[in-house]
């Protein structure tokens, strides 16, 4: 059971799936870092993005890896509009109301998908879905390797945006001191919406990278969102490096607990980590603020 021939592939696969988790978690932690609320619509938006990528493939014949360039801008705009025109005005600046608004949107999206497409599970067929790369003792699935590389590329781009552009500086200013940023002439409502848009675009990219090796149904996002929440809590709410490292850790933990406990209980392993982290260190591994 504990032979390296089984453990090493499990760990490597855990790292690969962890990279996709990282993308989902990045969006979540970015939104939390700036708006200081958890976006409960994150999972539903992931389901929606998976459906969008699925139909881009079925109807337009667009390969998911190309669909990234179409869906990321669309979902950025969608996220921007959701925050600017619905969540922002609806919540009257109250955090509890903001939470409720994202929850309401999550319920609407998820059930609109259920209403339109029923609970059927769909998959796509691409030529590379079952191709593997042989690295000595282990075979790695090509779509997962692409996902891993793509996730890190996005994280780097995001880091560049946040560090070197004026938009990034504005976002960081609002995250640190909202009132001060407002006094310095930053349009806070615009920055909130931008951040929400960036977080949603991350989800769209994750969906495109995920689709070749995964399936689509209206509640598929739920499975990811619990994981992403755990990662964000583990890494520290609002911390980008925390989200990346947390995601890889969780990917491996899930892969190993799936190996020992079976698929459906793998999620319970994640939840136990979640509870322990909350109890022992609610600010996470890298977070400064609880």
């Amino acid at each position, binding site marked *: 059971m504990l032979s390296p021939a089984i453990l090493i592939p499990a760990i490597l696969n855990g790292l690969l799936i962890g990279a996709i988790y990282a993308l989902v978690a990045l969006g979540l932690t970015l939104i939390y870092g700036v708006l200081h609320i958890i976006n*409960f619509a994150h999972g539903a938006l992931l389901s929606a993005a998976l459906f969008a990528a699925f139909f881009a493939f079925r109807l337009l014949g667009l390969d998911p890896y190309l669909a990234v360039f179409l869906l990321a801008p669309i979902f950025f705009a969608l996220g921007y509009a959701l925050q600017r025109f619905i969540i922002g005005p609806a919540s009257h600046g109250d955090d509890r109301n903001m*939470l409720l608004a994202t929850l*309401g949107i999550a319920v609407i999206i998820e059930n609109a998908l259920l209403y339109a497409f029923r609970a059927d599970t769909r998959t796509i067929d691409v030529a590379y879905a079952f191709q593997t790369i042989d690295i000595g003792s282990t075979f790695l699935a090509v779509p997962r390797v692409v996902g891993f590389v793509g996730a890190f590329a996005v994280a780097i781009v995001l880091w560049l945006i946040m560090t070197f552009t004026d938009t990034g500086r504005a976002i960081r200013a609002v995250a640190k001191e909202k009132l001060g940023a407002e006094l310095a002439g930053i349009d806070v409502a615009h920055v909130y919406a931008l951040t929400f848009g960036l977080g949603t675009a991350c989800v769209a990219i994750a969906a495109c990278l995920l689709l070749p090796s995964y399936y689509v149904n209206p509640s598929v996002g739920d499975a990811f969102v*619990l994981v992403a929440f*755990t990662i964000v809590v583990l890494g520290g709410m609002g911390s980008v490096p925390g989200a990346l490292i947390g995601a890889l850790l969780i990917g491996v933990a899930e892969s190993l607990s799936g190996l020992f406990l079976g698929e459906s209980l793998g999620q*319970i392993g994640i*939840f136990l980590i979640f509870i322990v982290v909350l109890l022992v260190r609610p600010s996470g591994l890298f977070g400064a603020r609880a």
Partner: protein
Amino acid sequence: MKALVPTVIVLTVLSAVPLLVHSNVTLNFLVVALMIALAGQGWNILGGYGGQYSFGHAAFFGTGAYVTAILQARYGINAWVGFAAGIAAGAALGAVLGAITFRSGLRGSYFALVTLAFAEVLRIIASVAVITGAGVGTLIKLDLGVRTLQFQSRAAYYWIILALVGVSLVTAQLIERSRFGVWLIAVRENEDAAKALGVDANNVKLTAMIMSAAITAAAGCFYAQYFLFVDSGIAFGTWISIQALLTPIIGGVGTVFGPLLGALVVKSLGEAAKLLAGDAPGLDLIIYGAVLVLVIWFAPRGLMGGLTRARKLVMRRTGQAASPTAEVRHG
């Protein structure tokens, strides 16, 4: 005791309904609405008065439902005992969850997240565990009688759920009038300030959570007894978490009658949707989600808030000063 007069009047009027209405469809509608009102009142005590917004009250509803069903179906235990055990189990879960989260200082987003995750994990466990009947669910054997708490007539169920709602209304009323209620509202408005004034905030929140869990669990126990079937999607599903928070938010958070009023509105909307578009999956939840967003957007104090405002307007027109207690309660 004067404060209980409106509650007594509402309960008296409602208890007369089955004497006048004999349609099973209407009674069924009211029974389900009252069950949702009960679950919502549970949420209201913690969320409305205490300001701790739970996104996973299904955890308590489902625990009540499963404990009631499993004790009867698997161990042949008396239905009344099962019902009581379900409530106790819900309260115990509330105590554990509250102790964990409040001790770690989790508030706002974190609290909503933990409750949501807890309900979700219970759902996963219930969908694979042997004792819950895994994917098949748990069926309570049909056996009519007072001892088994199963009745032919809808009216009997109606009076049972109305009695439970009555208890929850009186509980909310007593909380509002008590020292504990004042502490709870102080914690909602500003937890740090409340602590500075000597309120044991964690203890107050924990007590509210246990009461809240017990009331919502009672709604779950009733569900099991009324439908005689429970599965993981019903017991721990999103539908009940959403409705438990939606009813007080529509009716008015932190008001005694908010959840009852909200439940009638929510169930009416659900029925209207079914009439218009058939029984399509997901449609009712789409509407609930939309209503949730619209209510916090345009009527953040819910229907009770609207009523209070209307009454004040009328009083101003007629030259009377608005009563100061109404200001305090909603301020």
